[in-house]
């Protein structure tokens, strides 16, 4: 016993002695310390890549409910942001329907990382370890990313705490300064715009392939400013359409902006947009197509292979193959191909249903200078605003239908961006003719819709309700309302951004690598047009030129006037499924009127056996899932999200929570 005590004492004395030595404070070998990482330019660039990754871009890997950079994510389980708007119906049984907040974003940890990055590069420059030129670029990038993060915070919550330095615990123990209160909504937007200016003033006008073609340029910062300023201006102008009340409103943490503010923000949008249009060298991708066919191909190419379209693209996010490297890539192809083309028979696949609402919105090529939408023509009497709520239980179909020889002809005169964005009935996707049939009319006039059945036609042939005897032989309306309903519920599917003419390198989760376009010139052009017409500032003539340049790229030959209605319709058509519609409904305070127990619509191609040979008729119906849900409603409080953690961060909560 005594011996042990002695040994312990001796050992303890070693410890006491050695405690003063460094050999116990070794650096871990499997990690890189901040000092080392920031001590050289390569390390700094590693950190830079990390904070680029933290940008809350609503891309293919964003899932409203769970957040950004989800692997697998985004399209995982058939999710797509268009389903939160009137552009599409999908993921019908769960999840984020119109009227639901787009998912929290409250990543002050990432903001701290950016602030830390900005402080560190300054130190490195001061110590002579970094050139002035590199510092300027990195400084610009840091502020661009910060602007983007605060833009996403402001658009979700209104005024938020603005933290533009690395917060430190106080020596005195009084940490009350760490609890930064919310700034007003106006101050927050002003901060976003001033950060954009700071970024634009320091970023290079172009980046090289060797340095990183996907890094931000001056034009990316200005494109962000154009978008953010238009957003802020719209809220200032349209806030009263859905005014809220409560403590947050009284303190101007939400709302509280004036007509002067609106005018000022519109002007900032105009100036930023004009700078890009005049000086960036960007043009529309293939602005003068020789034919409609070429225009359709160009437009589809831009999203299928965005790297071909750097002429127009200002900023985009790219991916590496996630089926080879873990936690990478995206799944949009995996989940959203139509049933007839999908890779594997998995739950929730192939459910993308572009709405009839958006299909009807596209123009035709009458090109008579008015630019009006032309709904698809289903009836000889021109009535195109009647919809059947319950097609399955119909006992007769007596409307004066137009007869079509096939499923596709009804769309053949529409704006080519429709066929380039939507998989239409009877069109070809991945070499397969897509069949969206959803019913038949028996020879005795009895309709059979939405259920598996057969009937003999006047020509003696057997016809199937879904146009095929085989469950993999059709892409719409199958098994509606069941868990296995891996079909479009609208009669349309997604084409834009999907790999249609090419094959996905590895048809697996994370196997898609096509880049996501965040900013492109077309948006800047329409931002300018909207800001000019809304505010009476800028040049209305240029607004018209820009509006028509975009239509010309889609093979239109006429010039239409730059009315607000035309500009907003053009936005919906040109940017369909790109996520623009969702935030347009937000900023212009239209969500609660567009979605007030509202139902989206579907188009059911039906084979009619009353005529010989049998032909197709098209029935306008209320979407099955919206009908079952009694419509979708957006509450005005949802214009601002619920601030997380108010019990501990002491922030004033937004109205209605």
């Amino acid at each position, binding site marked *: 016993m005594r011996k042990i005590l002695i040994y312990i004492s001796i050992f303890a004395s070693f410890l006491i002695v050695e405690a003063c030595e460094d050999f116990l404070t070794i650096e871990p070998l499997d990690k890189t310390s901040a000092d080392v990482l920031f001590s050289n330019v390569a390390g700094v660039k590693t950190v830079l890549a990390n904070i680029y990754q933290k940008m809350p871009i609503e891309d293919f890997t964003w899932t409203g409910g769970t957040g950004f950079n989800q692997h697998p994510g985004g399209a995982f389980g058939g999710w797509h942001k268009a389903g939160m708007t009137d552009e599409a119906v999908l993921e019908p049984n769960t999840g984020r329907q119109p009227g639901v907040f787009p998912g929290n974003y409250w990543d002050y940890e990432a903001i701290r990382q950016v602030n830390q990055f900005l402080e560190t590069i300054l130190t490195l420059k001061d110590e002579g370890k970094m050139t002035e030129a590199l510092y300027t670029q990195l400084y610009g990038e840091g502020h661009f990313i910060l602007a983007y993060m605060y833009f996403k915070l402001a658009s979700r919550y209104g005024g938020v705490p603005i933290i533009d330095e690395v917060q430190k615990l106080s020596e005195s123990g009084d940490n009350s300064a760490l609890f930064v209160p919310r700034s007003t909504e106006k101050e927050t937007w002003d901060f976003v715009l001033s950060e954009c200016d700071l970024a634009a003033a320091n970023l290079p006008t172009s980046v090289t392939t060797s340095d990183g073609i996907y890094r931000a340029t001056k034009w990316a910062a200005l494109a962000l400013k154009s978008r953010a300023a238009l957003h802020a201006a719209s809220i200032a102008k349209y806030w009263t*359409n859905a005014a*809220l009340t409560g403590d947050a409103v009284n303190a101007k943490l939400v709302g509280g902006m004036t007509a002067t503010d609106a005018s000022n923000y519109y002007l900032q949008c105009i100036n930023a947009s004009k700078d890009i249009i005049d000086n960036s060298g960007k043009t529309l991708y293939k602005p003068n197509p020789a034919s409609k066919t070429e225009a359709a191909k160009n437009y589809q190419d831009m999203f299928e292979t965005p790297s071909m379209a750097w002429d127009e693209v200002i900023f985009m996010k790219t991916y590496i193959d996630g089926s080879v490297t873990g936690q990478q890539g995206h799944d949009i192809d995996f989940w959203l191909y139509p049933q007839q083309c999908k890779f594997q028979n998995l739950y929730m696949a192939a459910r993308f249903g572009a709405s009839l609402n958006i299909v009807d919105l596209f123009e035709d090529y009458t090109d008579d200078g008015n630019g009006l939408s032309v709904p698809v023509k289903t009836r000889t009497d021109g009535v195109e605003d009647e919809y*059947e*709520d319950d097609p399955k239980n119909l006992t007769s179909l007596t409307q004066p239908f137009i007869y079509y020889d096939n499923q596709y002809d009804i769309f053949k005169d529409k704006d080519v961006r429709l066929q380039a964005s939507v998989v239409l009935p009877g069109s070809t996707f991945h070499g397969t003719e897509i069949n969206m049939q959803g019913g038949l009319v028996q020879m005795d006039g009895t309709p059979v819709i939405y259920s598996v059945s057969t009937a003999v036609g006047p020509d003696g042939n057997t016809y199937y309700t879904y146009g095929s005897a085989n469950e993999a032989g059709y892409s719409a309306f199958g098994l509606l309302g069941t868990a296995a309903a891996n079909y479009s519920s609208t009669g349309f599917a997604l084409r834009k951004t999907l790999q249609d003419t090419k094959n996905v390198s590895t048809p697996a989760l994370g196997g898609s690598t096509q880049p996501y376009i965040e900013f492109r010139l077309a948006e800047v052009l329409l931002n300018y047009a909207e800001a000019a017409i809304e505010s009476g500032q800028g040049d209305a003539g240029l607004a018209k030129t820009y509006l028509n340049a975009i239509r010309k790229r889609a093979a239109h030959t006429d010039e239409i006037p730059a009315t607000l209605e035309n500009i907003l319709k053009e936005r919906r058509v040109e940017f369909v499924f790109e996520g623009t519609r969702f935030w347009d409904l937000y900023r212009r305070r239209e969500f*609660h009127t567009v979605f007030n127990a509202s139902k989206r619509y579907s188009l059911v191609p039906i084979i009619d056996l009353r005529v010989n040979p049998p032909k197709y008729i098209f029935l306008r119906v209320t979407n099955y899932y919206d009908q079952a849900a009694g419509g979708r409603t957006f509450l005005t409080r949802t214009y601002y999200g619920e601030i997380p953690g*108010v019990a501990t961060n002491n922030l004033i909560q937004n109205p*209605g929570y």
Partner: protein
Amino acid sequence: MIVMKKIYYLILLITGLLLGVTSCDMFKIDTFSEPDAQVFGAIRDSIGGGLVETDLQNGSTIGAYELGEYSSNPELRTWYIKENGEYRNNLVYSNTYRIEFMSCNFFPYTIPQLEIKQGANEIDFNVVPFIRVKNLSITHDAPNSKIVATFYIEGGKPTVKVASMALYVFTDMHVGEYINKTVSTGTGQPTRSFSPAATIDPETQYTLSIDLAANASVFSVHRNYYFRVGAKASQAGVGTIRSNYAPYVVIAL
């Protein structure tokens, strides 16, 4: 044997400790008082004092924020309103409240301070409904196998327009925009929508109808059916708009 005895003492000790613990306040949930007030009343039309009917699901609600002692960061408490426009909440704390009407079927407003006393509080809220559905008649037109509703509508203010109207049917009194049977149009006209929203003429009589023959599967059972007419307004600057209703009518089919 010694081991047994040790275990015996151990059990005694643990039991004693447990008993000791339970006897103290540790298991009391909290020291707050229970809800000590009840609040009830109705949403009434400021003209005529009639009840302003709504939906239970996705209808008008009363938003209450408890001020006073908890005013630093009050959370929204929702007091629900029954279809007929009455409401009751029996578990409320007496305190001062801020009342907000948002996303309702009448013009929104806020009551900055509302005193709820201990015990029963009967409070009626006078409002301006977006639309009044008046002179309603819902009848069974047996020869034509239809349910026919006729009515007039009136805007709460001159600026109000009408966006849509509908005749709903269900098998109980909760019938409305969100609780109803899906009906086929057939030769009837169960809904009308106006795009753009139409100016309201209080002199116009509207007729909506449900074709019973075309909806044989909905009305397959002989029983009481509940019919109700709703109209939805269009009005700028008031946020989310809910439907206005006339009281339901029961018809045995």
